[in-house]
């Protein structure tokens, strides 16, 4: 019997490790939805994932997408959501970091969607006082893809790019195509017609602990992998202590649990979307 009884959550695909960080054929252990798993990737890049806790040895579905091994512990249906930019030839794709955070997956997604904390948590990088205003933006649930889309998000950034000397409004687009994954598009500093992609693929270890995999697909010919990773890890390292001090750790779906403001439009939509899907894992469902 699976520990997680939430079918919707169980039937999703989850990234559990970056392929470039493991040696071929070498076994790695991990935990997903409280289930112990092991996985390998062979020399040709084919993954294999099996249970090592209960039903030890049982193979579970797996695939390699966006540079990660993905698996599904329920009934796998369909593919991992699309990120078309990933396959553009001039992009640099990498796992920026895999970081353990003592928080539920949906709390971490909300933080990823949130702009209001930039001046306070990512001071002098993604935001700076007094540029604290969250301007009006649009949120919708795309019917054909069943995903949340937030557009026209603009926020003043002190280091908009390494090329530009001063601060400027940066434009963002957020997608939430999976209950525990989100994709962010951000104006590219090198090409004003294209956008950099930063995605978080969360691996819920249990209801209150995650491993967050951060995938980058960027247009950047100047910086080496190490400095690009370091930047993202700095950002995530600033979020981590905040996330770990949220109480309760699970995301409350009762609209009266917390106090939203207009800047939280995308988070409100996300909470409603999770409620409508009947998600119970990692959340405190609203009383019926």
């Amino acid at each position, binding site marked *: 019997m699976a520990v997680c009884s939430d079918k919707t959550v169980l039937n999703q695909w989850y990234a559990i490790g970056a392929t470039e960080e493991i040696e071929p054929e070498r076994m790695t252990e991990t935990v997903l939805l409280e289930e112990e798993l092991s996985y390998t990737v062979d020399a040709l890049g084919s993954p294999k994932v099996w249970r090592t806790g209960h039903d030890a040895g049982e193979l579970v579905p797996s695939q390699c997408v966006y540079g990660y091994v993905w698996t599904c512990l329920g009934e796998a249906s369909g593919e991992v959501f699309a990120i078309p930019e990933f396959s553009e030839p001039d992009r640099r794709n990498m796992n920026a970091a895999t970081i353990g955070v003592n928080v539920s997956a949906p709390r971490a997604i*909300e933080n990823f969607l949130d702009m*209001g*904390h930039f*001046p*306070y*948590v990512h001071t002098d990088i993604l935001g700076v*006082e*007094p*540029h*604290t*205003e*969250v301007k*009006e933006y649009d949120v919708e649930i795309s019917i054909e893809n069943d995903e949340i889309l937030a557009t026209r998000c603009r926020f*003043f950034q002190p280091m908009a790019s390494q090329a530009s000397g001063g601060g400027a409004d940066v434009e963002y687009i957020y997608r939430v195509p999976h209950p525990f994954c989100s994709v962010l598009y951000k104006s590219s500093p090198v090409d004003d017609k294209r956008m950099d992609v930063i995605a978080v693929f969360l691996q819920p270890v249990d209801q209150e602990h995650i491993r967050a995999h951060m995938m980058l697909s960027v247009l950047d010919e100047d910086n080496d992998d190490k400095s690009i990773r370091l930047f993202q890890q700095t950002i995530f390292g600033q979020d981590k*202590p*905040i996330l770990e*001090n*949220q*109480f*309760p750790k699970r995301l*409350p779906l*009762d*609209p*009266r*649990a*917390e*106090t*939203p*403001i*207009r*800047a*939280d*439009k995308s988070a*409100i939509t996300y909470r409603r979307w999770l409620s409508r899907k009947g998600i119970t894992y990692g959340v405190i469902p609203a009383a019926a």
Partner: protein
Amino acid sequence: METQHRKWHPIAASSDLPLRHTFHGQLLGREFAVWRADDGYVNVWENRCLHRGVRLSIGINDGAELKCQYHGWRYANRTAGCTYIPAHPADAPARTICNRTYPAVERYGLVWSGETPDGELPEISELEAGSPCALRAIPVNAPADLVTKRLAEYRFQPNAKIDGQGAEITVETAQDGHLSLSSVDGEVSTKLLLFVQPVDSNRTVVRGVLSDRPKQEDELRVFLHHSRRLSSLRDLIEAEAAGLPVPEPMQPVIHRVSEELASMPEQTLSGRTAPLRVEVSRKWETAAGIAGLKLVPVGEQLPTFQPGAHIDVHMPNGLVRQYSLTNGPGETRHYTIGVKLEPDSRGGSQCMHREVREGDVLAISEPRNNFPLRRDAVKTLFVAGGIGITPLLSMARALHHSDLPHELHYFSQSEKHMAFPEVLERLGSGVVPHLGLDPAETGKQLKAILSRYQPAMHLYVCGPGPMLEATRKIAADHGWPDNSIHFEYFKNTNEVDDSSSFEIDLARSVMTLQVPAGKTILAVLRENGVDVPSSCEQGACGTCLTTLLEGEPDHQDVYLNESEKSSGNCIMTCVSRAKSGRLVLDI
């Protein structure tokens, strides 16, 4: 267990609350953010920001407010009401955004609180007489009842014989979560009160208080003595607790926010727009009871202002107030305003004085000038009363800069009540202070000042209503024509009569609208989608001035002068109404 919720418990030591610190406390499974404001008040709050549940114990105590680390929301000392939401600087936080507070009493070197304690904190007679001295708190991983039971075995020496041994211990009382122990060794004795703070079902903090502070030379040895012995006893208790089944952690009830707060507020569509964002870069006391605020742009260049112009400031508490700019010519990198703390403030000046701080972002309107300065006068006289100096300061600076003849007569209580002294100094001999005069003396001075009218002189007056009235009258008596007297009231103190109902025709919009009793022309226009500028909305500032083409107006403002009023060709739509059944407006 329920009875525990109705009792007072110690949750911190006074020494846990040093200047500007925030302490993380816990009682019966519930976390508290405990912080002392600069005025000494101890706040015990639910340890959660109402916005996203982040612990407030990691927040910033600025001495007056606690600021959440996540989005910079600020909560006020005592009330725990939210005063500022930086993500929406133009909107006021709803008054009801208020964190949950718990009672707090500081006594015997400890901070006491509880979920819903009955009555007052009981007096501990043993500690009332002496000089209580709190010991280091000892956390124990064991249930409170076990800790209480085992604490009766605690052995210690009296303060005055701390290095001795074999003192006799008597347990005098053991009740209500505390034990009173007495240690006697020969002729010396010491009382120790041990309070048991149930942190959670399996965690406890023991807080000891000696009834008398040890002599200074013994202090360190006494503290060490208790630290070591209580730690040893802790080890024994924890060993015993380890053998018992682990109780379930307590589940404190987190109260829901009100229905009103749960829904996302709509964008406010006030007719008074505040398109500019400014940061308070400096706030200082420029004179007794008057705050100077220097506002710098967030983002773009501030729009041009003219001497006499004012801005609407949309305050964190939801009020909108008008303040004149004091800037000199060409001073376009900031706006500087002066705000007097009004004793009978309806919340505007109080908010500016008490809540707004350096670094805050405020939403303001573009500057509007309804008090324009002529620069073609042979001589210009400025008469300022109190805070009425602000628009006149800007005007005097403009004339001073161009070497145009002027005098600035500044009526003020005393020298220390004179705002922006550094600016006044630069104006030099043009400034004539009149200090500490009563109304009769003021009248006498005004007569002297206004007695030598010549054609093409102009007078600008700003100050409290009675002084303004007196100045206007004295000027008129001394032959100043209506169009040479320019004035600006702070507010309209007239009682507005809005009992009439009438019709308005909008000549350019080709609309006919009904204005019922109890509603202003301005409100009716807005309801019908006609956007007209406004600012003070009480008939003082002049922003909503509208040309009147036909009809007899019922002027209720203090902006227009008598000849303007009697001409009957303009009207302030925010307060004025119709004497005739119909007005035709040039809108």
